[in-house]
């Protein structure tokens, strides 16, 4: 077998550079009771809906197996499928661009938009454009990028970051959203109605009115794609609100930023993925709207279509024989909704646009493990395995986490660590029975001083590393050996 060469990692974007480790961010998030309440309710609700609609499908496991294998097939021959996709897209009248990294992708999009002589674009919610921080790049070029998904609008107007893949403003309550709309909408266009309350229907109506004028006048739309079909040159976008249809239909020019792993080999493969994705994601039999297009259509919608195929660290992931299965991900967010860590810590603690279990395996692979936040992500899990159970493409997230932990440990080998120190002293202690016995005596003696207490809340260092976040049990007053000696000692 020839040696593998790994592609370069993606640059950690300015938003996330210098971010503290996951535990520090999580600790901060745990203090936010509004967020914890919202997350507990939201994840529990979506979990229930997902379970119900997945249960309706006769052979869900066969669908998962098919979906996972189709994605593996794509990853095993990604070069061939991308070339086929490019040929078919081009034949259908779409212009194809390639980008090695975020900076190159952003440059391509900015130039295309500038070429149209416009100073604004309307955007469909897209993880790829968030990942490359396209909005920031457009803004720098003097181009306003209007997010049109309701949650993305809330995040954008609030100068905030998304905290969930599917419902990015899940950390916000209705009163906060009303305040954001009241104070920020006017500066971005049509102000919120004077009479708007915090009723969700009224907030949605305010967004409808605010964005409608932007949709009607937009000349350029920007989207991602959920799927790109190699054998027909077709792009697919799933959504709920109709903002996606507006952006994909009304502008004259459409630019779609697509990660290279989004390819499906054949049109028929959609039969599986249009079952797996909506049921796993929103917990619906089908999402309200799916738009499917194959180049410009005569007299219907944008007459100029572009696709930007982006690597940005994906080939780095592809080179890891274990880790590459993370590229099967279809961004459904089912793993977030079942994760006990995500439910409590929320999305911002993951220091990337990809939160939750999938973020914990994808981000350190896309960006490498040099930054403290990225090196801490593989530990943001109890390895309970719920994420694998719900993953529609069977990504073995716990296995990937362990694999990444190994890489983090290997990268730090040779440097002193608390764990290494503890292991060394343990080895010294277990080397002689006498050392072990006297250590036990010390501990049981301390127990007598703690009479009446059942747990310990503060231990001195290094025990404080444990008790900072958890209680420690009081040591027993007698060890097993002491008990055995006392009760069976004579019969020896």
């Amino acid at each position, binding site marked *: 077998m020839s040696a593998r060469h790994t592609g370069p990692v993606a640059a950690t974007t300015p938003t996330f550079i210098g971010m503290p480790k996951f535990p520090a961010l999580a600790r901060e998030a745990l203090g936010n009771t509004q967020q914890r309440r919202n997350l507990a309710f939201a994840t529990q609700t979506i979990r229930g809906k997902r379970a119900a609609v997945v249960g309706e499908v006769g052979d869900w496991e066969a669908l998962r197996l098919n979906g996972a294998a189709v994605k593996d*097939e794509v990853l095993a021959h990604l070069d061939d499928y991308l070339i086929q996709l490019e040929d078919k897209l081009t034949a259908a009248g779409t212009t194809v661009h390639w980008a090695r990294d975020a900076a190159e992708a952003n440059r391509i999009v900015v130039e295309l938009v500038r070429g149209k002589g416009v100073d604004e674009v309307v955007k469909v919610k897209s993880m790829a454009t968030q990942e490359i921080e396209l909005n920031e790049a457009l803004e720098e070029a003097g181009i306003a990028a209007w997010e049109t998904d309701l949650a993305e609008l809330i995040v954008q107007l609030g100068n905030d970051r998304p905290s969930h893949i599917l*419902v990015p403003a899940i950390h916000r309550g209705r009163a906060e959203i009303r305040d954001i709309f009241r104070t920020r909408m006017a500066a971005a266009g049509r102000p919120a109605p004077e009479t708007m309350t915090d009723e969700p229907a009224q907030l949605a109506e305010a967004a409808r009115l605010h964005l*409608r004028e932007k*949709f009607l006048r937009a000349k350029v739309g920007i989207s991602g794609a959920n799927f790109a079909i190699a054998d027909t040159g077709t792009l697919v976008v799933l959504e*709920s609100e109709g903002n996606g249809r507006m952006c994909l239909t009304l502008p004259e020019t459409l630019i779609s930023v697509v990660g290279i792993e989004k390819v499906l080999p054949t049109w028929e493969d959609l039969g599986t993925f249009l079952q797996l994705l909506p049921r796993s994601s929103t917990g619906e039999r089908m999402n309200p709207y799916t*738009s499917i297009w194959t180049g410009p259509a005569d007299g219907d919608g944008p007459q100029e279509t572009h696709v930007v195929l982006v690597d940005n660290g994906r080939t780095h992931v592809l*080179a890891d024989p274990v880790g590459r299965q993370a590229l099967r991900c279809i961004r459904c967010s089912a793993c977030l909704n079942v994760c006990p860590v995500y439910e409590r810590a929320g999305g911002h603690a993951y220091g990337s646009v990809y939160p939750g279990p999938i973020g914990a395996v994808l981000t350190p692979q896309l960006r490498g493990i040099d930054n403290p936040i990225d090196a801490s992500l593989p530990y943001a899990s109890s390895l309970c395995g719920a994420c694998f159970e719900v993953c529609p493409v069977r990504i073995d997230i716990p296995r990937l986490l362990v694999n990444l932990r190994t890489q983090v440990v290997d990268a730090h080998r040779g440097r002193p660590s608390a764990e290494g120190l503890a292991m060394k002293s343990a080895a010294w202690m277990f080397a002689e029975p006498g050392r072990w016995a006297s250590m036990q005596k010390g501990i049981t003696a301390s127990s007598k001083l703690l009479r009446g207490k059942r747990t310990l809340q503060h231990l001195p260092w290094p025990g404080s590393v444990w008790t900072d976040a958890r209680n420690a049990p009081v040591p027993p007053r007698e060890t097993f050996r002491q008990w055995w000696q006392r009760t069976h000692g004579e019969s020896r």
Partner: protein
Amino acid sequence: MTTAREEVLARIRAAGAARPVEVPPAPEPSPQPAPETVDLFAENVADYRAVVERLAESAVPQRISSALGQYGVTSVVVPDGLPSGWLTDAALRVLADERLTAYDLDAIDAVVTQAAVGIAETGTIVLDHTAGQGRRALSLVPDVHLCVIRADQVVGDVPAAVRQLRPAVETGRPLTWISGPSATSDIELNRVEGVHGPRHLHVLIVGDEA
């Protein structure tokens, strides 16, 4: 200087991911539609809080008129190829799609279309935007979408619909899959019907009166 295309492809080849993959078959699509399939379709469409009616072909014009009346519609756009004689209500302003701009469409209350395929298992209507269905903006901008679908257009499940739609995709037709009215759950997961797409979806299933 290598191009981005060459470099990305070279990185993929260097990643050592090439290997044979055995893809197990997807579960078989359900057999041909039966009367229960249309029942299930009607049930699942209604589950999205769309309005569903089943009727005989002869009743279509009258039902269109009364349905549009329910929403207080005064103007309606009709795509090329919609059967003439469906819109008979003299009180309605009926507009053909003659180079209407997005602004023009925004001032129109409703649209009446036909459909290409219905999917029972998911309550989905697929438009392939051929005759009687109009270009995509028509069924998007007006606030009421009245869709007339024949019972024999309903298939059992998603894979069956996907197979049937390949020729449309191969000829470059765009598709719009519609499952209920526009909706959002972005605010505290409260479902709100109607954000940007039509807030009312009204479906007439023809030829199989239940």
